[in-house]
């Protein structure tokens, strides 16, 4: 029966040809998305980058790309991951990793609404969670997650950003003996759910505790709100515990689970010393805005809780057919599970769930964890909503919007009466949805953005590889109205949006040079110098429109490691300088005003090597250049440096 329904879905999908028609685009659509030159967009839209490992920022309603924030991937454009200061950000227990797969984003919240302070991002492949500072739009912290594989159900947060969570898509062997046969999956594998504590004063992350779970796959998650504040919900699939051909073998059962976790109760267990401290190994990387430098440290302990032993804080709710999204409505009462192979959407009631737990209205247990009866927790089902439901967002007016991958549409339905109100096609095969504040207590509504998985013919063709396609809908009326297509970079998964006012006035314009505590800062040209320490040559070099000091350097030898510590002396907005040296084996760097940034260079041959500014900075930008003379190894060419020196100048130190 299950296989049959899959077959039907596949046929439906295969027959879904691109239908590139404008649809019912109304005459007013252009006006709604037109942001005149010099005007600002109404919303910031933070969009996950998927396989590019970055986060992109768009303006809504224009769909204009404002910025790409490097998070888990190196970025040659500004030197992130290449400069000496940012290299530690990409350190893990597996060494330095230049790439990851970035899926979901969550804005920090206060009282269930975005507060504009931080953006959290997950790394799916080598499990990590990052925190981005929304005053600087820089990645400020990355925490690796031990005992984890496929960090997919992350980085969703509780209403006051008490915790950000992470869960395992892949269960794996955990503990001392991990070299086990894959066929021992049921016996030797486990999943984990990590709760990351957030320091409300500075955003700093720490791994508070991990739940050890049965070996199933966790897909997505969302925190409760209001009445359900103490709870976190995770969608689960592969309750069959398959370890091969999951496409078929993990789709056998009629129902999988939504896992409900009472995190307040977990805290209580920890206060009562019920946790077990286990050895582990994971990297914790922190970028310091004052030293403009990151550090990476390896942590080695994690506190674990076993819900099969510690009772009454973890429950399973049956949910049809491999649920993908689990989304909580703004009131905190309704829990929407989207079984991606189901032909209906189950909506659970938090009140009913609590009553069922109280009465122990269970349908047995799954590996020691109680399974609440489906009907006892169910509020109702949305019948025949579409094919392949994935994710649901809310407008704050009592309506839910669910994406349907297979039938390629967005469906609006009423939460109370579960009636479908409207459906609009997407182009094509939509994945995630975003309504500004759409997963919070107070959605801002107005727009819905669909992030599509298939682009086909929506834009001018660019060969086999295409940009991803996003679509903007006006949802202010009874019916959704498609008003804009815009291409996106990477592969967007989840996204977040919030009113521009919550961020734009706090945006940092430059770093104060007086507060620069970089160990190699050059505060003014008077301090510019070149210092040799063995085969390491430290160049304290300044940049200001439009020259470097020093811009003539001699006395470097083949075999030296040269560190250009470039300090940008400018103290005004939007005056970065760039730095490049011929033959540099890593990227160029961009240095923001007041910042110090270091490029390492190992000259491989004798000669005179040009340096120059790579960011057009003034009318005399093309004059912003200099030379480094490299002599053979062991040569006694004297160290000599300066800018505008008389030809007879000699070393200053």
């Amino acid at each position, binding site marked *: 029966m299950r296989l049959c329904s899959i077959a039907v879905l596949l046929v439906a999908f295969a027959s879904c040809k691109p239908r590139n028609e404008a649809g019912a685009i109304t005459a007013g659509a252009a006006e709604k998305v037109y942001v005149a030159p010099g*005007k600002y967009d109404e919303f910031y839209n933070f969009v996950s980058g998927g396989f590019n490992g970055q986060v992109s920022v768009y303006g809504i309603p224009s769909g204009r790309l404002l910025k790409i924030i490097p998070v888990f991937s190196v970025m040659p454009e500004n030197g992130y991951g290449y400069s000496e200061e940012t290299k530690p950000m990409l350190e893990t227990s597996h060494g330095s990793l230049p790439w990851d797969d970035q899926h979901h984003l969550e804005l920090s919240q206060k009282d269930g609404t975005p507060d504009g302070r931080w953006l959290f991002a997950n790394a799916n492949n080598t499990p990590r969670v990052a925190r981005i500072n929304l005053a600087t739009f820089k990645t400020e912290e990355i925490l690796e997650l031990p005992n984890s594989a496929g960090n997919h159900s992350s980085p969703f947060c509780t209403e006051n950003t008490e915790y950000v969570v992470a869960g395992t898509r892949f269960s794996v062997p955990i503990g001392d003996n991990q070299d086990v046969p894959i066929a021992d999956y049921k016996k030797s594998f486990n999943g984990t759910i990590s709760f990351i504590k957030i320091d409300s004063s500075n955003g700093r992350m720490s791994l508070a505790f991990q739940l050890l779970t049965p070996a199933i796959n966790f897909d997505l998650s969302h925190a409760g709100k209001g009445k359900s504040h103490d709870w976190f919900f995770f969608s689960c699939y592969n309750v069959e515990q398959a370890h091969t051909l999951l496409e078929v073998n993990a789709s056998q059962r009629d129902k999988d689970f939504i896992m409900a976790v009472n995190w307040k109760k977990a805290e209580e267990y920890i206060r009562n010393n019920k946790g077990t401290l286990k050895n582990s190994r994971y990297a914790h990387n922190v970028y310091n805005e004052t030293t403009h430098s990151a550090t990476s440290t390896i942590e080695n302990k994690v506190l674990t809780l076993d819900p099969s032993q510690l009772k009454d804080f973890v429950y399973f709710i049956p949910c049809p057919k491999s649920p993908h999204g689990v989304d909580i409505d703004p009131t905190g009462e309704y829990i929407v599970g989207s079984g991606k192979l189901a032909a209906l959407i189950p909506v659970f009631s938090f009140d009913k769930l609590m009553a069922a737990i109280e009465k122990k209205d269970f349908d047995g247990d799954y590996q020691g964890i109680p399974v609440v009866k489906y009907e006892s927790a169910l509020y109702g089902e949305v019948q025949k909503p579409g094919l392949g439901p994935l994710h649901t967002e809310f407008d704050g007016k009592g309506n839910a919007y669910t994406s349907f991958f297979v039938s390629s549409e967005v469906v609006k339905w009423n939460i109370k009466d579960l009636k479908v109100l409207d459906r609009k096609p997407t182009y094509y095969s939509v994945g995630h949805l975003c309504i500004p504040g759409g997963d919070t207590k107070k959605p801002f509504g107005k727009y819905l953005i669909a992030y599509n998985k298939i682009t086909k013919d929506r834009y001018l063709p660019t060969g086999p590889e295409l940009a991803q396609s996003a679509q903007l809908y006006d949802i202010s009326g009874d019916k959704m109205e498609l008003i804009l297509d815009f291409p996106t970079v990477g592969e967007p998964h989840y996204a977040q949006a919030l009113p521009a006012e919550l961020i734009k006035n706090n945006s940092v314009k430059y770093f104060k040079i007086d507060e620069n505590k970089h160990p190699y800062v050059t505060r003014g040209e008077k301090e510019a110098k070149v210092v040799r320490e063995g085969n390491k040559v430290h160049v304290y070099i300044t940049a200001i429109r439009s020259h470097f000091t020093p811009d003539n350097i001699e006395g470097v030898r083949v075999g030296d490691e040269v560190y250009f510590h470039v300090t940008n*002396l400018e*103290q005004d907005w939007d005056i970065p300088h760039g730095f490049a040296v011929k033959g540099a084996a890593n990227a160029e760097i961009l240095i923001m005003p007041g910042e110090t940034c270091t490029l390492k260079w190992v000259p491989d041959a004798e000669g005179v090597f040009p340096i120059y500014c790579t960011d057009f900075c003034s009318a005399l930008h093309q004059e912003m250049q200099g030379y480094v003379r490299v002599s053979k190894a062991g040569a006694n060419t004297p160290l000599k440096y300066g800018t505008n020196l008389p030809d007879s100048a000699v070393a200053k130190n």
Partner: protein
Amino acid sequence: MKKYVYTAVLLGLTWACSNNSQPSKENSSAPVAEDNSLQSSTSASSAAYDSIKGAGKYTNVALSATLDQKMIAGGKTVYEVKCAACHKLSDEKLVGPGWKGVTKKKSAEWIMNFVSNTDEMIDKDPHAQAMLAVCMVRMPNQHLSDEETRDVLEFMRNNDSSK
């Protein structure tokens, strides 16, 4: 005329071509909301421009007869970090003009306004605009605090009082 040019040189600024990167206001008769540009229309307020004191928050700067050594020291520190890359203490031009004589040519208010309100002054002040054509680099606003701005003025006064 000579004085005019000299004064302009002192300012160390340049009026780059109209395609410079400064935000500019769109001209439109449509009833649209205020845009976000930093720069106001120059035509609207140029009539009221005070070329002696310049444009900015400083309208009356009290100068003591004797120089304040503490302020001079503070001004020297600021100069070395934020100014020396472009300005010499002699009258020789580097990127911008040398500072020698500036306090004799320009009022205290003008200097402090220029240091703290650089972009508006470059756009409005005739001498500043003329100087931009000579130096070809817009002087950056280095965002000095009130105290630092005053200290730099004292440092300039001291520079002009020495032989």
